């Protein structure tokens, strides 16, 4: 056992002194309350994001059905006369 290890063992004992702390009675309830609130918020945020995605998809579909960008627009110029 090197000197450093011995010194570390002494400090370890010092840190362990007093053992596990006495947990105040309300701590578990507080943690559960806050954790449940975080879970609720996350759920709400997730739902909002899904809703936003759904709205975007619907908006795109409506726009696409209306404009039909895949259809070739009617030609504005007169086709050239080839036979006369």
């Amino acid at each position, binding site marked *: 056992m090197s000197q450093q290890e011995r010194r*570390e063992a002494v400090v370890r004992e010092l840190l362990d002194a007093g053992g596990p702390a006495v947990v105040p009675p309300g701590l*578990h309830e507080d943690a559960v309350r806050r*954790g449940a609130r975080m879970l609720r918020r996350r759920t709400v945020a997730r739902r909002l994001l899904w809703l936003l995605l759904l709205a975007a998809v619907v908006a795109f579909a409506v726009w696409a059905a209306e404009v039909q960008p895949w259809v070739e627009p009617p030609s504005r110029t007169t086709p050239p006369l080839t036979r006369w």
Partner: protein
Amino acid sequence: MRERQAAQQARRAREFQAFVAGAAGRLLHAATLLTGEPPGANPRARALLTAALASTYASWDRLRGEDPYDRTRTALVVRYARGARPWPRRPCRRRGDGGPLSRLSPQERLVLVLRLYEGVAEEQTAALLGLPPERVRTLCARAVSVVLHPPRGPAPLSAAPPVPPVPPGALGKAAS
């Protein structure tokens, strides 16, 4: 659907309560060491632990075999490190009558608690704190020597050779 959700909630509450009953004492002790508060009056440590436990509770269903103790400890350490401003290593003299680590800087306390109290490996400690492993070793050695030898006066390390007393006037002579 609703039934399954209720059953899951009940299971989570039961498991979480068992976990807190088993681990909170040790975690609170670690948090109290970190904040440097006296064991009887540790509001900061309690607030830290409550926040860390709350985040563990919130992710309880997604742990997938991960150790909740490790997770809570990580949350605790990260939260403490983020809140412990100023970060530079200067002795923090908030209250002189604090715990055994009240003479150390926040960073030294983090290293000491993780390495010696929690027994976390050097590499993991380094990764958790965002430091190189050599730095963790140095900090740990420094913290150990400060804890063992309170800096009342020069207090030479037991391993270092004693510094010979400088005769008065020697400094002046050397400078001229």
